[in-house]
Every structure is written in structure tokens, then in C-alpha cells.
């Protein structure tokens, strides 16, 4: 079984029998074409819509399924009379339409509200057309069919547009995207970029939030002190005692000495370091408290 030939767009118009039970990939039925097949009744294909109003009751459901909406059925009825929409004979169409609706009813067919609505609308138009017209209102009153005709025309435009769209070549039916296996790729994921401003904004946010906790006191030493604290700790990280004086670097000048001293004080205060002096005025040694 192959489907490609059937997929060709021109197939929709050739009118080959279509079994609705089998999904053939063909464009949808076009019921306005009198020769279109639309149903299987007791194993026989009904290849034509009935010329008269009679359709085999078993086919009714399928028949109605061939029509998208009530407007569609109406269009079909009009076309079957070889009439232009603009020449619509409301009386006759209404009669035919109503007979279909009655037939549905007789079959306990659950009627769609839309079909009944359309029937009511047709009946209304018909009655208006039968009413004698007073010459005074005549000027203002448009043909009662006008609105129906507009709706039919508008619907028909999009029905046609849908058919056009359906028959256009499209991906996965007549067209395929060509692709090939990619080469071996070593995909490296770049590390996130961070702007210092983001860091600052984040800090600002933390601080703002932290201020809501009254119990927190966030005191911040100057950054150079904090930085120096880290450096001292790192120096001490290897364990053991480090001579106090070795932490001071003369080349940093007086400010550097002060910063280091403050860092040591802060570290002491936080119990992070231990100072050991074995004798008075003897050398002071420092050790990380936890190491």
C-alpha cells in the first residue's frame, strides 16, 4: 500500500471512491461537487449525492459529516440547483433544508443547535419575503436574503481558502526538511558572565532584607581589613605558629601595618587566631585557633 500518489494534490478532484473508514490522506470531501463520493452504505459506495432529496437513512450521518457547518449544507443545496448564491431561491432552499432537518429528527438524530438555528433563519427570511411590502419602508429595507447571502459568501471564501491551504504543499506531506547528521561536536558551555554591578545589587538587596531583621547587626569593617583578615588566615592555614612580625610588611608602609594590625585584632575578637607569647617581651607567635 502506498500513499504518495494519493497525496498528490490533484487527487482530490478526480473523484475516486473514498472509503471514509480508511484514512487516505486525501484532502477533505468537497460536498458541493455532486459527483463526490461520500458514503458507504451496506458495503456499497454511494458515489453521488442524491439528485432528489432522498438519501439512504443509513448514510445520513455520513452525509451530514460531509458538511462542515449548516452554511455548508446550504451552499451545497444552492449549488445543486446550479444557482449563483446571489440568485438564491429562498423558498425552495428552505424547503429542502427543512426536509433534511426533519429527516434528522425522524432518525432521532441529535440535532446540532446550529442546524435548527439556520432553519429558523431561513423560515424567517421566507416569511419576510412573502409579506406584502409597504412602499414606504421599501427604501430602507434591504432584501431579506441579503444578510444570508453575505454570510454564505463570507463563509464560502474561507471554505475555499481552507481548501487552498489544504492543497498547498507542506512539510511532512510533500516536503521534507533536509538534514544530515552533525559532525562530532565538543560543546563547551561558557561560564556565566558576571558584572560587578550585579554583585553590588545583590549585596544591596541582602542588606536591605537583613535590615528587616532587627536582631542582625551587620557591621562591616573596611574592606582592606576584611581582605587582610583573609590573607592572614590563609598564611596560618598551614598550621603551626607564625611569627607575629612576619605578618607585617614594611613595604606596605604605615597604612599597611595599621590594616594588618586591625585585621589581627578583628581576628582575635572573632576568636579566629591565638596569640602566644612565652615570655615577657619575647617574640609573639600567631596560630589559627581551629587548626
Amino acid at each position: 500500500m502506498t500513499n504518495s500518489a494519493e497525496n498528490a494534490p490533484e487527487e482530490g478532484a478526480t473523484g475516486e471512491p473514498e472509503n471514509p473508514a480508511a484514512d487516505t490522506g486525501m484532502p477533505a470531501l468537497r460536498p458541493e461537487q455532486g459527483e463526490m463520493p461520500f458514503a458507504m452504505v451496506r458495503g456499497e459506495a454511494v458515489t453521488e449525492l442524491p439528485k432528489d432529496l432522498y438519501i439512504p437513512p443509513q448514510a445520513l450521518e455520513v452525509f451530514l459529516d460531509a458538511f462542515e457547518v449548516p452554511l455548508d449544507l446550504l451552499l451545497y443545496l444552492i449549488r445543486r440547483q446550479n444557482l449563483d448564491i446571489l440568485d438564491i431561491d429562498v423558498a425552495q432552499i428552505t424547503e429542502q433544508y427543512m426536509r433534511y432537518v426533519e429527516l434528522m429528527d425522524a432518525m432521532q438524530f441529535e440535532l446540532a443547535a446550529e442546524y435548527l438555528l439556520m432553519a429558523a433563519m431561513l423560515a424567517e427570511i421566507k416569511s419576510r419575503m412573502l409579506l406584502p411590502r409597504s412602499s414606504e419602508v421599501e427604501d430602507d429595507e434591504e432584501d431579506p436574503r441579503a444578510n444570508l447571502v453575505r454570510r454564505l459568501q463570507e463563509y464560502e471564501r474561507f471554505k475555499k481558502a481552507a481548501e487552498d491551504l489544504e492543497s498547498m504543499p507542506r512539510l511532512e506531506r510533500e516536503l521534507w526538511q533536509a538534514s544530515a547528521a552533525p559532525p562530532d561536536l565538543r560543546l563547551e558551555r561558557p561560564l556565566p558572565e558576571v558584572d560587578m554591578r550585579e554583585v553590588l545589587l545583590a549585596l544591596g538587596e541582602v542588606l536591605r532584607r537583613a535590615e528587616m531583621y532587627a536582631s542582625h547587626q551587620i557591621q562591616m569593617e573596611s574592606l582592606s581589613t576584611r581582605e587582610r583578615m583573609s590573607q592572614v588566615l590563609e598564611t596560618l592555614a598551614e598550621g603551626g605558629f607564625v611569627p607575629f612580625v612576619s605578618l607585617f610588611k614594611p613595604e606596605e608602609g604605615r597604612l599597611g601595618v595599621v590594616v594588618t594590625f586591625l585585621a589581627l585584632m578583628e581576628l582575635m575578637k572573632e576568636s579566629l587566631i591565638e596569640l602566644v607569647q612565652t615570655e615577657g617581651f619575647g617574640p609573639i607567635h600567631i596560630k589559627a585557633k581551629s587548626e
Partner: protein
Amino acid sequence: MEAGLVQILEGALLAAGEPLSVQRMALLFEENERPSKEEIRAAIQSVEERCEDRGYELVQVASGYRFQVRQDLATWVGRLWQERPARYSRALMETLSLIAYRQPITRGEIEEIRGVAVSTNIIKTLLEREWVRVVGHRDVPGRPAMYATTRQFLDYFNLKSLDQLPPLAEIKELDNLSGELGLELPEQTSDADAEPDEGGEASQSETAAEDAATADGEQPELEDADDAQQDTRTD
């Protein structure tokens, strides 16, 4: 064999498996080696020419260029798959057409024209396929979503832009309405009837809106890809 611009584009187009824009092609290159848009366009031209007599061609669609199997090979290539291509119901195609031609459009407006409710499944399927998307909400009670088609829709139907859709049929003038009931319309009414189609839509829409509102009800949820049985006639 040289890894020239043409070869790189060929490789990228085939590896991508989706259309590539000129912009995206440019980003295949580091800044210092990046060809100009003109150079890329010239290379695309070469890529296109090099498809001559091949089983594929380079086409331009809405989101860029893609290699695509030649349509006249569909008969054979289609046999690669046992499964038939997805079918869409007429209700879905009509809804899609309305969105394509009348976008941005609300569900209510679609229903006005089609005269029946649009099933939720149809909208869902269209959204899932990424053929349509919500582009806003109409400022009326209920703030209904307005739908428009997407680039994927154009890509799927092998189109560069909406312009390439087949033109909508003209609406014929109504002034030659002639009664079949022997009720010839007096001459003077004809100018009142002869509304241009744009003007006609408004009044028609109003009536249809009432209809749609009256007929509004929950629709049976049916498989969209199934045969055209979408509407309410079975409930």
C-alpha cells in the same frame, strides 16, 4: 577540500534541521572572521546553484533558508514512512485559514463567520503545533484572546510571508439579488444593497454574533486529525 564559506553554510544548513536566518549564519563565525551579510548572501546564492540536478533544493521560508527535498520526489520519499502524514479536519483548516487571513482574530469572530462554535481542541492543536499564537486580547468584555499565525506556520507551508497565501475570493456585489419568488426588487433599493464587502462585514458580523451567542455551547471533543466531524451536529 576546503572549508570555505559555501561549505560551512551547506554543513550548517544540513546540520541545523531547521531554517537558518542570515543572522544566525553570521553567528557561526567568530567576530574576527565573520563574513559580511553580503558575503553570506552571495554564498547562499552559490549554495542554491550547487543544488542543480540534486534531490534537494535550497528554499527561503519565513524564518530563513533550508534545504528541502524536491517536491517531485515526494512519491518516493514519502514511502520512507509507514504512517500517513497527519491530516487535519476541515474545521481545523477553516479555523486556520480564518486566523491566517483575518489575523488578529478572536475565537468569537471565527465563530461568527463559520456560524458554529470552534472547538477548544482545534485551538489547542493549532497552538501546540505553533501555527498560531495569542498576540493580545481584545478590549471587550471577557477580553478574548486574539490569534495570529506564526513563522512556524509559514515555514510549514513553505511560505516566506503571508503575502504568498492564495488571495481570498472576491465577494460579489449583492445588487443583482433577484427574487425567485416573483418579488422583483424595486430598482431604488439596489444602491442600499450594494455594500462593498468591507462595509458588509460589520452588519453581518453583528447578526452572526447573535447567532453564535445563541448557539454557544460546549463542543464534543474530537480528535483533530480525524475526519471532518468537528462540529456540533452530533450533539
